[in-house]
């Protein structure tokens, strides 16, 4: 086959928010990982109630630490995802989905078995 000299790859991220669309780079990150920009994900988790507000945004590191693992686990539990404690593809896809701005954790949970 004849390949062109230059290949342009067009990616369409139009269905994702500009702030959250690049979270795909965190897929498979787990405890101990260091990924540049993970502090942005920590801001997301703070925004929706999974990390304490007491930590200033500017103090977030890019490390996948113990506190962040707890936040990921809580997120997976609250969103009905498989609880892996890692940023698996299901978790990242859910994080990137458009959503309601109301926090997930200022609530009292009731569980009913059907």
């Amino acid at each position, binding site marked *: 086959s004849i390949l062109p000299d230059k290949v342009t790859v067009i990616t369409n991220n139009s269905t994702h928010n*500009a*702030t959250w669309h690049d979270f795909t780079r965190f897929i498979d990150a787990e405890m101990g990982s260091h990924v540049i920009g993970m502090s942005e994900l920590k801001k997301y988790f703070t925004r929706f109630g999974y990390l304490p507000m007491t930590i200033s945004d500017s103090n977030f590191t890019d490390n996948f630490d113990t506190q962040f693992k707890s936040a990921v686990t809580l997120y997976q539990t*609250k*969103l009905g995802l498989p609880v892996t404690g890692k940023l698996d593809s299901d978790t990242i896809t859910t994080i990137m989905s*458009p*959503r*309601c*701005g109301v926090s997930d954790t200022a*609530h009292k949970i009731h569980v009913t078995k059907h």
Partner: protein
Amino acid sequence: YSYFYGKPRWSRRMSPMTLTYAFSSTDMIDYISLSDIKLVLKRAFSRWSSVIPVNFKETDKYESADIRIGFYHGDHGDGEAFDGALGVLAHSFSPENGRFHLDAAETWAVDFETVKSRAAIDLESVATHEIGHILGLGHTSVKEAVMYPSLSPRTKKVDLKIDDVEGVQALYGSNPNFKFSSLLESENSSND
């Protein structure tokens, strides 16, 4: 299902309770007609009132309405700035605050046949979800339920599920005309 901290609810003494709602005269979108927006919201409110003894009535008196609906861009003064297209779609407040805010930057749709954008968001689905918050429900972990926090573009999710109904009925009781069996039948048929 879940509730806001302290389990707040609207506490009128009359039964059935009637809550009024009004649309902002200034903070709206112009590419969907007001009559269509009102029709969609009316349907969303009626879904909730079919399961609890609460009626919703539209009023022109925005300032005194129990529920005040508007579309806002970015920072709109309540400390919860919207973030542009997608991301956060809307937010509302727990009882008895009544503020119901939609992000004006979204591509809102009342009909996916005419709106072709891949980023189109179904107004009725988001409205039904936000009314759940207005009534006192928090988010749920049940993916199929209306009160699940996320909604993909071009997706419609307007039918209340058992989780939504049990949650809101624990706050307000049941509408005497509501039958759980019909909800179970409809959920079973959709699962089939």
